[in-house]
């Protein structure tokens, strides 16, 4: 297959952008990616656009979003499609962009993910995301994604001795990283004293889905991120001399049962493990080769569980690594250097693209000025988790000289 590199990246701030139009927000990130790639007058070289979005049709009452974005960006007649794969829509769009180029069909692709979730109430937003659950056996009851996050956390705590303090430490680490990320939704560090150790901690850190508290959940965010992909053997690479190209070396994805209760072991995330194994096999890499990772911590427990499924740590051992600073930016296996979903935010359609944006930024060495650069970063992995683990996409990006 052809080698594919990421040659431009763009991002909006994540937060409350509800005064803006969904496609305008996506267009802003797309424009940033084109500028980063050094493209201004030559934007018609983009042959294919993939747009990741989960709820535009439901919560923003907008359809035909991909064609709208192309027109807003004056990029006609580029081919354009919408990719909806729940909260993993972003990485799925990256995967399809890769496939379109690797197959030889096109040379240059723009992948943009975006979501506006703050234009509705928190209850409506929670309901919209819950619509991915099984309609008869899950959604009808009022079950939500936080409900499954809570149940998963309780089983994990009971089986491996994880404590609520450990959950707090994940939030502390992610907020430390997010505070240094100019695009993060919550750029405020938090302390373990404030969210756990103090006798009044429960006042600011109340339960949302027991035993998960507010600091165990990602915020509901608006925002967009965008990538420009190009075939390395294409003559069009001549347009992209502004930045160091970062190669997509591995992509894997997998599905699991729609109903969480139908899994043999509710703590085993088969789709995460298989997606990672497929990405490792394609890249010719192993878990120990990965320098850093962006893992989908919509609920902080997922940072631990995913890090175990992808092989970074043994089952039940990731909390020990967290306590010992292994997953901090200056640790041996930095995780969620962007702040993760916990601090950076989670505009569902944008998240997977934003994770890959962070991989590229770190691999280029451009997180240095923000004080959160991973030293000697060669290979980064992103895991974008759809549903409650029923559709997962893993992406590995690498420096071309690695």
């Amino acid at each position, binding site marked *: 297959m052809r080698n594919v590199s990421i040659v431009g990246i763009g991002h909006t701030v994540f937060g409350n952008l509800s005064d803006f139009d969904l496609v305008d927000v996506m267009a802003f990130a797309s424009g940033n990616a084109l500028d980063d790639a050094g493209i201004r007058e030559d934007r018609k070289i983009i042959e294919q656009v993939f747009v990741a979005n989960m709820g535009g049709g439901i919560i923003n009452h907008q359809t035909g979003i991909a064609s709208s974005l192309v027109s807003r960006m004056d990029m006609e007649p580029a081919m354009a499609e919408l990719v909806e794969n729940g909260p993993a829509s972003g990485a799925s769009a990256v995967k399809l962009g890769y496939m379109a180029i690797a197959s030889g069909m096109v040379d240059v692709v723009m992948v943009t993910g975006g979501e506006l979730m703050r234009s509705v109430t*928190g209850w409506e937003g929670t*309901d919209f995301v819950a619509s991915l659950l*099984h309609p008869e*056996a899950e*959604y009808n*009851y009022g*079950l939500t994604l936080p409900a499954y996050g809570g149940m998963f956390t*309780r089983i994990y705590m009971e089986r491996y001795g994880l404590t609520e303090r450990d959950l707090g430490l994940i939030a502390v680490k992610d907020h430390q990283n997010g505070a240094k990320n100019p695009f993060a939704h919550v750029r405020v560090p938090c302390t373990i004293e404030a969210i756990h150790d103090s006798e009044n901690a429960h006042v600011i850190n109340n339960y949302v*889905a027991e035993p998960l508290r507010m600091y165990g*959940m990602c915020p509901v965010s608006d925002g967009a991120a965008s990538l420009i992909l190009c075939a390395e053997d294409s003559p069009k690479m001549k347009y992209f001399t502004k930045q160091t190209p970062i190669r997509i070396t591995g992509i894997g994805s997998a599905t699991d049962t729609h109903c969480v209760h139908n899994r043999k072991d509710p703590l085993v995330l088969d789709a995460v493990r298989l997606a990672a194994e497929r990405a490792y096999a394609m890249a010719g890499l192993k878990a120990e080769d990965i320098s850093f990772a962006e893992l989908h911590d919509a609920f902080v427990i997922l940072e631990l569980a995913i890090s175990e499924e992808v092989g970074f740590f043994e089952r039940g051992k990731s909390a020990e690594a967290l306590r010992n600073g292994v997953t901090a930016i200056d640790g041996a296996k930095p995780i969620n250097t962007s702040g993760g979903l916990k601090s950076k935010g989670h505009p569902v359609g944008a998240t997977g693209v934003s994770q890959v944006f962070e991989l590229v930024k770190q691999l280029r060495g451009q997180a240095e000025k923000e004080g959160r650069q991973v030293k000697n970063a060669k290979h980064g992995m992103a895991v974008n988790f759809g549903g409650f683990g029923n559709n997962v996409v893993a992406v590995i990006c690498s420096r071309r000289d690695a």
Partner: protein
Amino acid sequence: MIDFSAYGVKTPEVKAVKCPSCGKLHYPAPMICNKCGERRDPSGVIFKHWETVSLSGECTLLAWTRVYALPDGLDMQYLLFGIVEFPNGLRASGRLEVDQPVTGMKVNARAETMDNSKGKEFDGLIFGDL
């Protein structure tokens, strides 16, 4: 006990299905048996009829949570939810009505007609004290 079925009154019921070829039980009903590949035809016209089996009675609580992040339309401060396993091996999610839930405890599953967040009636499972 009054047999309401004799009066044409619908009794709340949550149904699992049984594969007519290999006998494997499924909940919720799939369109294909994941053990033998038998196809299910909800209209019963093309393929063999799948028997239904009521889900109720004693079961084991595998996981639970008290959730404050509820969907729009459920105007409650919180709800308790759980995942249970029945003696026949089937598992299900549902609402939990137990004062002091403990993982691994025995609970009683019963079907009740309730409203979802959109006000639509459905027959669902409630896990209560034995």
